[in-house]
C-alpha cells in the first residue's frame, strides 16, 4: 500500500495504517534525531513522541509536504526543546560514530585513504556538536535525506535562502573550529 493510502486510512482512524507508516519512517527519523541530540535514549524518546504527536495531529497533515518531512518538522521542535532543557550541546561521541555502518557511504579501495577518511569523520563528528541545532538539522537533512534547500526551509520554517545560508554558516563554523592537521593525512 502506498504512503498516501496509508495516510488516508490513518487519517480515518486506522492504527494499523499508522503503524505501517511508523515502521517505514522510524529508521530515518531516528537517524535524524540521533544526530540532533546525540544520545540514544533521548533520540528514542523523541522519535516516540514525534509519532504520538503526529498521530494526534494527523488531521492537520495536508499532503503538501511528504509525510517524513512533516515528521522531521515535529521532531526538530522536540529536539530543540530537549536540547534547551538539557542546556547542553552534547559532545558525547558514543552515538553515530564514524565507522558505524553508513548506508550511503562510498567505500574507498585504498586502505590508507579509508583510514584518513575515518579520522576526518571522527573529527567532523566531534565538530558537529558545536553547531547550532538548526545548522545541524540543515546539514543532516541535506546530506542524509538529500532534501533541497526549499524542502529544508519548509521544515525549519525559513526561506530557501536562509536554509542555504545555515548550511554555509555551519560549514564556516566547522572550519573555524577545525584546527587542521589530521595525522593520517599526508
Amino acid at each position: 500500500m502506498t504512503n498516501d493510502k496509508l495516510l488516508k486510512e490513518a487519517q480515518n482512524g486506522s492504527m494499523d495504517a499508522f503503524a505501517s507508516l511508523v515502521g517505514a519512517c522510524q529508521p530515518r527519523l531516528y537517524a535524524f534525531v540521533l544526530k540532533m541530540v546525540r544520545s540514544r535514549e533521548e533520540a528514542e524518546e523523541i522519535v516516540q513522541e514525534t509519532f504520538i504527536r503526529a498521530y494526534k495531529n494527523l488531521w492537520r497533515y495536508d499532503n503538501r509536504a511528504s509525510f517524513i518531512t512533516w515528521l522531521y518538522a515535529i521532531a526538530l521542535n522536540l529536539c530543540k526543546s530537549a536540547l534547551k532543557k538539557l542546556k547542553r550541546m552534547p559532545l558525547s561521541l558514543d552515538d553515530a560514530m564514524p565507522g558505524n555502518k553508513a548506508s550511503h557511504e562510498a567505500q574507498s579501495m585504498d586502505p590508507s585513504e579509508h583510514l584518513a577518511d575515518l579520522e576526518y569523520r571522527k573529527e567532523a563528528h566531534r565538530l558537529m556538536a558545536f553547531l547550532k541545532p538548526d545548522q545541524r538539522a540543515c546539514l543532516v537533512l541535506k546530506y542524509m535525506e538529500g532534501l533541497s534547500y526549499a524542502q529544508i526551509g519548509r521544515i525549519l520554517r525559513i526561506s530557501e535562502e536562509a536554509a542555504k545560508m545555515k548550511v554555509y554558516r555551519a560549514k564556516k563554523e566547522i572550519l573555524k573550529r577545525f584546527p587542521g592537521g589530521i595525522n593520517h593525512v599526508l
Partner: protein
Amino acid sequence: MSCKAYEPLIIRYTEGELSLKEQKVLEDHLRVCKHCFDKVQILMALAKEAEAMPSEQIDVLPRVRESLSAYDKSPGKPISRAFLGRSSRLVKPAFLFLSLAILCLFLWPLLSKGAASLFQQRFGEGSPHQTVTGSEMLPTPESKPAVTPPATVQPGFSLSFYRSTMTYEEILSLSREIGRRTPPYSSIPIDRIALEEEPFLTDSSINAFVTNTQQIKVDAETLDVLFTELMDTRPIPFVVTLSGERLFWGVFIHPLSSIAAPDLPLLTIRSEGDVQRLTLSKLDKAGASAEKAFLKFFEDRYKLAIQINSEVLPYMEALQLVNFNTPDNKMVELPLPEGWYAQGQEYELSGGFTWNREKNKNIKKLRAYTLYFDEKLEDTYYWGIKGQFSGEIHLQGFYNEYPYPGLSFNHAKPLEDPVKKQTFLGEAWVYYLECDNYPAAMAEEYPDTPPTFDMIFVVIPIEGENLAYALSLPVPEGMDIRDFYPYAEQILMLN
C-alpha cells in the same frame, strides 16, 4: 591571497558551486597548502557524517500504540470560528487587550437584560453559522465539544452611524459596494440632515446630541434590529426603531470604529438597570483626540489585562506563548524569521476578567509581542514609520462562533476572502486587509505617516474563550502584501 580568503571557495567547492575558473584557482592552492586541503577534507567528511545512518535501530511502535490507546475517538478539528477586530494603528498592545474588555462588558448587560434569546440565536449551539470541518474520526486531544454560549465573558459593542441625504436604499447599495474597499468617508454627504427621514432628530435634539449626551430607551425589538444589522462584515446602514416606530437610520461601520471619524456622532449602548440606553456623543474634529478620550474612558473602567513590564523579555528571537488550544496549555515557541526580533510584554489579568474554560483558570499572566524587522527600530508603531516594518502578536477579543461574513475590522476591509490555515496554535484565518486610518485625521497628527496601509492579519481563535491570537503584519507603503505572507507563514508555522 591568504588561506582565510580561500574559505568561501572551499565551502562552495564542497557544494559544487564553483565555476571552472574558481575551481582551478582553488585546486592550484590545495596542491601546495595542506591546511586548506585538510579543510576540504573535513567538510567532505562532515557531509558523510551527516549522511551516515546509525548502526542500531529502534522500534517505538509498541510504546506509541500504548500511548495512543488512551485517547478516545472524538471529533478531530477544532470548530471553525471567526473573530472580531484588528489591531488599531494608534494603540499599543494594552489596548488590544482592552478591546476585549470593552466588547465583553458592553454586551454583557445587553445579553443578560432581555436579549437572551437573541444571544442564543447568535451564539448558541444551534447557530446556523456554526460549522464543523475536517476529520471527525481522529483521536485528537485538541478535540473540543460543541461550543456553548460563554458564561462569563461576553462581547459587546458600541455603534456608530452617520446621517445622510441619501436614502436608506441608496446607502444600502453603496455600503455593499464599499464593503470590499475602504470607503472614502467624505464621499458620503453628511452636511445635510434629512429631517423628514428622522422624525426624532430635530435641530434641537441634534444640537443636544452634539453638545451633550442624550440617552434613548431602546427595547428588545430595537436591539434585534441592531444586532441583525451588526452581524455583517461591511459598513451597513441600519434602522433603529423604538416601540415599532422608526427612530433613525445610519450606517454601521464597526464596533468602536467611529472614534476616528471626525464630525460623526458616536452612539454607544449601555444598560442601566432595566433600561438599555443609546448614548450619542459628539466627537471632536480629527477623531484622534476623541479616540484617546474614548480609550481613557474605558481604560479607567475595564481591563482585561494590565501591562506589568515592557522589558521582561527584550528582543527575543522566538515567541513564547501558551498554546491554549492544547489540553494542557503547553508553552510553545514560535520562531521569528531570520533577522527579526521580538520584544515581549507581560500582562497580568485584571480582576474583572474570567476565563471560560476550567483549564485556563490558573493562567494569570499573558504575553504579547512587538515584532521588529529591524533591531534598531525604536518605536512600537509599526506601519511604515521610518521606512521600517514590524508587527505584533497579541490576544484579542472576538465574537464566539462568529462566521467569516460577520467579521468586523476596525478601519480595515478584507481585500479578498480570507483563507483558513492550520498553525501550531490552532486553526487560523488569514486576511489581507486594507487599512484606513482616516487620512485626514492621521495626516494632521502624523504628517509623515502614510494614511493607508495593507496588513496581513492572522487570527487563531482560542477554543472556548472569547479570545484569539492575532498576528498583525502591516506592510510598508508601496510594498506588495503578498511578499510579506511568508513571514506570517514562518512565525505561525502555517501549513
